[in-house]
């Protein structure tokens, strides 16, 4: 078994300087730009970025794939969040198995507990799920929720069994592996669109919300305060924390583009110039390339910047409506 601390570091990408092979960079997307006179995208699913920079389809082609997660320390064990339920592979994607029944639908986000990889959580639009066997089976995890809609989830990398979930009416926290949830009173009473946790400072969390902009927590999600007055009423679908520098963070949204803070959220600057449109759905800092920020722009594709958004370069996936970026570090042998 991988020592617990090592597993945490692998999961968060904090050991990338020692890596002998790159992390695998996944994107969950739907190709909607060419979708006309149809309710179905022309393609959808998980793509990964090959060394050549080419994006290659990975896993089953299912509608409504929202994200992918790899078991900490075991990148061959993968879970896909999809409209059809949770799809699991234990052989690096050679075979897949749906591990949820008919009751589970519209899974938007999925996460392993970095300190206990057997424990996993899923946010579905009809209520959250929990798994105690690494995603092989799932149970409903609705206790304590006033409304069941959830869209984003993180497993606290500092405390096993602690998770935060973004619901229709704010942020909820669980300290018993999702057996029960308690609403965080200081979180905004609106739909939480994205939750992220810092890779370097575990108590630092950032949330993007619907109509209420960006919110920061500096105490592990116990209390929250709004940040960035410039996007205070925006729908922010994207949020990212730099895994190398806790002072650097980014949010993005509809008509908002990309906004960057380099001082821990004290001030924010618009860094949209250079992107084709101001509709950003996913942001992620590349753990492999220090300071590189990836942005998924609605139906235009992926772009990256190595200067915190001052300039942007074409990163492919043209025509995609992005839902998530996920970096999975390799196992060090």
């Amino acid at each position, binding site marked *: 078994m991988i020592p617990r601390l090592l597993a945490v570091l692998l999961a968060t990408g904090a050991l990338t300087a020692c890596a002998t092979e790159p992390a695998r960079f996944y994107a969950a997307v739907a190709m*909607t730009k060419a*979708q*006309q*006179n*149809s*309710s*179905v995208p022309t393609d959808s699913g998980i793509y990964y970025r090959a060394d050549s920079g080419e994006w290659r389809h990975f896993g*089953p*082609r*299912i*509608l*409504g794939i929202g994200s992918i997660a790899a078991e900490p320390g075991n990148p061959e064990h993968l879970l896909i969040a999809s*409209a*059809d339920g949770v*799809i699991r592979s234990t052989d690096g994607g050679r*075979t*897949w*198995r*749906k591990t949820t*029944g*008919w009751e589970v*639908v*519209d899974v*938007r986000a999925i996460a392993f507990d970095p300190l206990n990889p057997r424990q996993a959580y899923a946010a579905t*639009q*009809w*209520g959250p799920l929990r798994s105690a066997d690494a995603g092989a089976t799932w149970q*409903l995890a*609705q206790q304590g929720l006033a*409304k*069941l*809609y959830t869209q984003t989830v993180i497993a606290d990398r500092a405390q096993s069994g602690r998770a935060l979930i973004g619901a*229709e009416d704010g942020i909820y926290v669980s300290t018993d592996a999702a057996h029960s949830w308690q609403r965080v009173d200081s979180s905004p009473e609106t*739909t939480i*669109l994205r939750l992220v946790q810092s890779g370097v400072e575990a108590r630092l969390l950032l949330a993007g919300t*619907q109509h209420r902009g960006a919110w920061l927590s500096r105490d592990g999600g116990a209390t929250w305060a709004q940040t960035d007055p410039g996007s205070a009423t925006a*729908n922010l*679908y994207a949020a990212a924390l730099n895994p190398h520098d806790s002072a650097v963070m980014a949010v993005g949204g*509809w*008509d908002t583009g990309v906004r960057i803070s380099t001082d821990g959220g004290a001030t924010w600057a618009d860094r949209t110039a250079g992107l084709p449109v101001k*509709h950003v*759905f996913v942001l992620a800092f590349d753990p492999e390339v220090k300071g590189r920020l990836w942005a998924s722009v*609605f139906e235009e594709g992926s772009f990256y910047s190595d200067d915190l958004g001052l300039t942007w370069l074409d990163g492919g996936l043209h025509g995609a*409506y992005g839902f998530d970026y996920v970096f999975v570090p390799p196992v060090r042998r």
Partner: protein
Amino acid sequence: MIPRPTKLRAVPSILFVLAAGGWIGPALAAAPADAEIARHFQERREKLIQTAIAIFEPADATQGTFLDVAAALQRGENLAAAQARLNVLNEPRPTGNMFWMYPVMAVLLNGEAHLDAGNRARLAHWWRHYWPSRGDTENHWVMYYASLYLAAQHYAGTGPEHWFNGQSAAENLTEARGYLEHWMQVTTTVGQGEYDSPGYIGEYVVPLALLVGWAEDAALRQKARMMLDYIFFDYVVEQLNGQYAGAHSRVYPRQLLQPARVTASALGWLLFGLGDYQQNAQSLLLALSGYAPPPILERIARDTSARPYVNREFKRTRWRMRHAGADSMVVGDKRTLPVYKYSHVDRDFVLGSSQGGLLQPIQQQTWNLRWRVDEPLDASNTFFAVQPYSSPHEGTMYFGADWDTVTDLIARSKTDYDSPDKLASGSPHEQVFQHGPALIGLYDIPADTRFPHVTTLFSRDTEDLVEDESGWIFARGGPVYFAYRPLVPGEWKPNDWTGLLGGGAGGWISTGFLEWGSGHRCYVSTARHNGYVVQVAPARDFDSYAAFQAAVRALPLTFSTATVAEVTFTALDGSVLRARYGEVPSVNGEPLDYAGWPLFESPFGVADRGSRRLEIRHGAERYRLDFENNVIMQTFAQP
């Protein structure tokens, strides 16, 4: 002798009893009327099947659908041509998700033995490698799981490596049955979600017909058969010469304006000989399944002696994932809103409504008037109003897409969703109330809503329109007079005044627009507090059109739109209808009893909410669908 379909399962038996308690044999069901009904049904069934088979030409592999192939396989006719066609139908790879699953299962179940090894292997290959998504509507799910159930039955014993989803045949069978049982339970307890859709009725008939025809499990086969009876009963009590009338959950633009060219009418012809023949995929599959409707349904469908009558039904909205609202109700762990349907069913017309509001995403028709026509197929025998509404609030209530993209994504397939001249819509700013052949619509439209107007559609088949000085607009539709009183004057516009559909937007949705979409007019009224009164009457009740107009003019009517829309109207039958937006309407001072609204209630059938029992009635005949015990019981009163 009609050949029995391959592996077609016997239709479950029915218990026949006398009301006094004595048992009689099935011979009673073979009374002349039943025999005649059955014979005509078989003739129509054969016509559909033979037409499907005849589509194949030996030298032409471009014609024919999966279901046509299934028909050829079932009868063992045109086999070579059908197989040649099947060779190319999956190329380069399957598409359509559950719309691929069910026709493929129809092919396999109707005659896999006739297929060559290549086609058999190809179909098995795609069940392994093509991952059909489950979709996001209730009809998608029922089709998906009925098909998956039968596929798991067909490939029984196969392991996970044979399946797209990595589950074994046994696991897929269990999961599919779980959903199907759940859907049947919910539908027979609190009503159908995609209720009374003249098009989507076919998407429920397909999976149920597959189960009736080919499920090996007798109990499930029986349940499916009972569900078909249930859905067809739902249809026959609100149809007019085969046209599905009354409020609809979902309807497309063409179906609004040419209401007979739709699956429900095609089914009405197959099942009961109503309306005109239309070759239709869903009807074909039903014909192939071996299902035959209980004769009582045809007797109801053709019985005009009981008309007019009132038909009330309870339904539910699509599940709401967000913004469910304080007035929503919980079923299991899902939220929905009650739908209260009311139809006045006359031999010459049907006026039917729901209470209005946001009951279904995108394609709701809150109310409509349909009048009888002798040649329904191309008729535009309809009159209705709509408050066009679109918003991300609605979209995210029912769909998983994001707030800022959901409207755009909806309009990628439902092109008119975000257009001010659309004719189907639910609206949270609408309240409708009907009593007999009179109806009141009220609106409280916020200033910032996307389309702040009410559209009333006068179809091109409307005749003798009179804009009266009294404020009433009179019109005639076939054998029916109707009067419309807008609370706030409007202006006339052509339908499709933006030119969206007429310009070809939306692909198949607007195909043939000139033929079905031209020549209609809309009365468009723009006011925050708004509404109208509708009074309908059969022409046979009046000496003349002028007499009808005079009678309506004389009806007491007071209304206000000052602070909120409100109306007090004395209808032709003398009932005093009162409605104030946001309040429970009343008839003769008695508030409507929404709490006691039945699942079904008409002279032809009753069902209480939660009972899971529907009693269908015609004369002394009773046909009871008992979903609790999974039995059908037919009784006859003693002479």
